[in-house]
């Protein structure tokens, strides 16, 4: 009764317990420091926003799993990730009832109608955000400054609006705190509409002053690095997105440095880092082929810069990633790696064996080939 020295079995030979639940759990853990810093920045309103949005996502997911119309389980953490990411992309003073609408739409339209985890075409969190962007364009563009005094005892007035009702005007509230309206604008909006640039350290850490960006890019990069090192996320996608965005921005900056901002500002001034690290790398909605990842990332980076520069919106990451998601099945198709032993598709190498598997043969090789060696009757 000794244990066998050699274990013989067929592939896959992966020994580590790499399940969907485990990867998702690690993503949630890596999101927690970002959420914590976000709460420190914006106080009780940000906390309430995160709780409400995540709870809505979980409850909606629970409902659809109970009715049996959706695959997956609540314990696979995917709805929690959707909720946390969605809350991080919304302004801190976003009315809580609108946050609940966003969470509901994210799970229903982003995930449940496609059949649950693993079947969705678009990133659920971004679907939810795109819906509220279209439904409540004023509220989603209303940012408030971070590190206000009394942020842990007092809600931002807009966030506690009654359901279906117009939220309170934050401009009046900010005036009572001796802040001008410009303090509430995001760096991108400031650049786009007022031509004001922010300095580099502020952009990276969002620690100093009343900067109204979302989560700190440096922290997001750090948490993303952890995921990439543990191989829970493919490093190619963020690198491709940031590289392509930087290259496009740098080219435009080189052409006309008075009109376009520098590439560094482009990379760190908005949601690009969060989008590149956490949204675009969603395994369901991004290509699986390595070459496809580069194409996908490059497309998103290019689109982000183009939307930021040439459209009416100050921020373009959301639409860029959604368009990238839509393109990823096509990207996967055209970047399929070659099967070992076969030449480039379309021309069969001379001297290859007559046997071609059914899937490999596809349409390139006539079906007669299969019958050639059949015994004659």
């Amino acid at each position, binding site marked *: 009764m000794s244990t066998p020295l050699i274990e013989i079995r067929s592939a896959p030979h992966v020994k580590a317990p790499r399940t969907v639940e485990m990867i998702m759990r690690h993503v949630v853990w890596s999101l927690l420091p970002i959420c914590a810093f976000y709460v420190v920045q914006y106080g009780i309103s940000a906390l309430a926003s995160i709780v409400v949005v995540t709870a809505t996502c979980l409850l909606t997911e629970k409902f659809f799993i109970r009715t049996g119309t959706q695959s997956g389980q609540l314990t696979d953490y995917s709805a929690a990730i959707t909720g946390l990411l969605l809350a991080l992309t919304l302004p801190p003073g976003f009315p809580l009832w609108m946050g609940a609408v966003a969470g509901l739409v994210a799970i229903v339209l982003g995930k449940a109608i496609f059949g649950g985890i693993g079947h969705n075409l678009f990133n659920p969190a971004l679907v939810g955000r795109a819906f509220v962007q*279209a*439904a409540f364009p004023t509220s989603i563009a209303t940012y408030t400054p971070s590190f206000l005094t009394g942020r842990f005892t007092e809600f931002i007035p807009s966030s506690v609006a*009654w359901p*279906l*009702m*117009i939220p309170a005007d934050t401009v009046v509230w900010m005036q009572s705190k001796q802040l001008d309206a410009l303090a509430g604008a995001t760096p991108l909006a400031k650049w786009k509409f007022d031509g004001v640039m922010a300095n580099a350290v502020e952009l990276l850490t969002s620690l100093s002053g009343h900067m109204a960006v979302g989560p700190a890019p440096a922290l997001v990069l750090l948490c993303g690095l952890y995921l990439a090192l543990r191989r829970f996320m493919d490093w190619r996608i963020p690198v491709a997105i940031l590289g392509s965005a930087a290259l496009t921005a740098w080219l435009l900056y080189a052409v006309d440095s008075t009109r376009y901002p520098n590439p560094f500002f482009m990379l760190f001034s908005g949601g690009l880092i969060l989008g590149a690290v956490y949204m675009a790398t969603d395994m369901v909605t991004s290509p699986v082929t390595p070459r496809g990842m580069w194409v996908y990332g490059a497309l998103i980076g290019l689109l982000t810069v183009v939307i930021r520069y040439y459209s009416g919106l100050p921020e373009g990451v959301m639409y860029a990633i959604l368009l990238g998601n839509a393109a990823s099945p096509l990207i996967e198709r055209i970047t399929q790696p070659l099967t070992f032993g076969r030449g480039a598709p379309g021309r069969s190498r001379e001297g290859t064996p007559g046997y071609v598997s059914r899937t490999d043969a596809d349409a390139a090789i006539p079906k007669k080939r299969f019958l050639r060696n059949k015994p004659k009757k």
Partner: protein
Amino acid sequence: MNSFPGTGYEGKNWTEFMEGIWERNPVFVMVLGMCPTLAVTVSAINSISMGLATTFVMAASCWLVSLLRHQIPKEVRIATYIVIIATFVTVVDYAIQAISLDMYEALGAYIQLIVANCLVLGRAEAHAARNAPLPAALNGLGMGLGFTLGLVMIGGVREILGAGTLLGFSLFGANFQPWVVMVLPPGGFFVMGGWLLVFALVRARRERAAVAAQET
């Protein structure tokens, strides 16, 4: 033979009439005439006007097509139907212009486009051309009313969420936050999809109940 409910026996004509309202509702079951369904349903009143205009055109053209069904040569029947439908659309067009210019402007080109509504042509070809004038007219009327019902169900939801009103009456007071997306074209798709989902759930539940009843 011509019977109506309450007279003792319910016959073919009642079935013809009810077919379009529920069982084969043009909007939610047959999914025909999507162009006006998605485009003009920004408010309940627009939906009612559009629906009633289509109802008139359908009932009248189905009746006339049925009346002329033996005279129309088979080879040019579609063109003939279109001419008949276009006649009634012109009547409706001028009528709405005379009744309410505001409504005429709100509905825009979609009144004239009733001519191209596949629902009207479809009923003329599939039903009116094979049936007697009375059942054909009743079927057209029922289909039209079913279409109106569908448009109002979509338009009502879009108006409530998009403007906080229903038929112009404010529901939530002055402080209502309008959902901008609901009065834009995507809102039409969202609400349409939502209703289709509701009906699919109802149908699935009813089928399950029927299976369960059979088993016991």
